[in-house]
């Protein structure tokens, strides 16, 4: 009750982007960095809760052990994302769900551009959030498999101080194993949260308008970072 709604909203959003949005992107340049850690990476056929557990503990451990990551070193961060996170995220589906109705009208090129810009947006935010990770730990909550090919895995991020942070993942079973396609932080589903702004952008200025808005946002962010 002592929480201000502003607080709630803001922390929610911050952490949405923090540990959660694992759907993060990479620059083409880093795309070909070899997945050196492939050996320790979670098995694609693992149960969804096991996959989430391994993924989140490993990512947290990497950040804790690497000061460069804590300082938001972008290239290193992108490498981490590529190796540890990207193989387990269906980014395309994430974008598609966030774009909603407009997705069907989009050409393949537009779809690609949307996914790319959305990813970039998220990886930047993720970079900022990563630098705040210190002594956080993952606590798995009891897993109740419901649907055979679409599940929610619930976890908490426990920080040395403050309340634990709810962090849930929605996964879908694909031919290549379970893939994360949405993340919930403090009660806020990420995809849902982008839906309205994407839809109103499309209503006002079409798919290209949305692509442009995303691209501009990314550029602004870049500029602000340099300043």
């Amino acid at each position, binding site marked *: *009750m002592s929480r201000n709604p502003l607080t709630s909203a803001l922390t929610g*959003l911050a952490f949405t982007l*923090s540990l959660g949005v694992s759907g993060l992107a990479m620059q083409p340049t880093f795309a070909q960095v070899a997945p050196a850690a492939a050996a320790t990476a979670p098995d694609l056929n693992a149960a969804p809760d096991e996959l989430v557990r391994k993924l989140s503990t490993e990512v947290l451990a990497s950040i804790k052990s690497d000061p460069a990551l804590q300082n938001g070193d972008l290239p290193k961060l992108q490498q981490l994302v590529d190796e540890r996170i990207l193989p387990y995220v269906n980014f395309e589906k994430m974008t598609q769900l966030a774009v909603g109705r407009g997705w069907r009208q989009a050409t393949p090129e537009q779809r690609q551009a949307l996914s790319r810009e959305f990813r970039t947006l998220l990886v930047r935010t993720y970079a900022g959030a990563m630098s705040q990770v210190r002594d956080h730990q993952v606590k798995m909550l009891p897993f109740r498999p419901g649907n055979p090919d679409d599940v929610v895995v619930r976890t908490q991020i426990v920080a040395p101080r403050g309340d634990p942070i709810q962090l849930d993942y929605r996964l879908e079973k694909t031919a290549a194993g379970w893939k994360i396609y949405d993340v919930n932080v403090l009660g806020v589903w990420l995809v849902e949260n*982008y839906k309205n702004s994407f839809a*109103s952008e499309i209503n006002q200025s079409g798919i290209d308008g949305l692509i442009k808005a995303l691209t501009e946002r990314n550029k602004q962010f870049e500029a602000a970072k340099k300043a």
Partner: protein
Amino acid sequence: MRTALKIVASCLMAMLSVGCATIPPDAGKNPADPWEVYNRQMADFNDRADKYVLAPVARGYTKVVPAPARDCIGNIFRNLGDVGNAINNLLQGKPAQASSDICRVAINTTVGLLGCFDVATSVGLTRSNEDFGQTFGRWGVGPGPYFVLPILGPSTVRDAIGRAADIYTDPLAFNHWERAYSIAAWSLRLIDVRAGLLDATALLEGAALDKYQFIRDGYLQRRLNLIYDGNPPREKEEDEEPEDKPADKLEKEESAPAKPAEPEGNSGAQQEPKAEKPAPQPDQPAPPPGR
């Protein structure tokens, strides 16, 4: 002196009122937010108040006051907040949690030195997060229109009324104390909360396409989640999905990275052959997950 103060005050007012919020043409079309035009203006005002007053003060606070002292201050306020958590858990028919909240207050106020140390959490009594807005929601009251409050920010009609009740029942309420002390205490509380969010706001700026919408939708989602203690019913579940599904599947096939795909990617662990595709209403909303 007087005039100097006046000048400062009018400068502040000027800074706060300059510029106006950008109102998109479809403002107010969202059924959850009929007052969007007002709300955007108020959100814009709040942003400016934050930028020029609250955030700088909070930044100064984190510079001047060392971290352990800030932890202590934050814990004291949270301890006071546990009183309201207890009241609301009781009103929501969750006596077990209400008594846990009361134990927390008892432990933290004594062993925890007036709440300075959160001893209760370390002995396994987790903090609840309840308020009157949630209690009303639990009783079946809908949120009403989204409603941005001055300074306090995102709310709904229901939650704004709840907030008044929160403030009234708070141990720091105005009617219990000398007004000056009360104002000082609330200001410190506000600064404490804001200071805890300094990193978060920077992230938010970069994440949102339209910050107003992002905060609004996040707020509404989060409140629903809180009312159901983490298990909200998925009502408007995937409205567009059934249509999009085939396209989605196709799309994925085309562009899926050629992963070492095991065609039967079964996990084995949970493969009950029960299919309930259209309504993945996960579970009963009753027991909160982690307690």
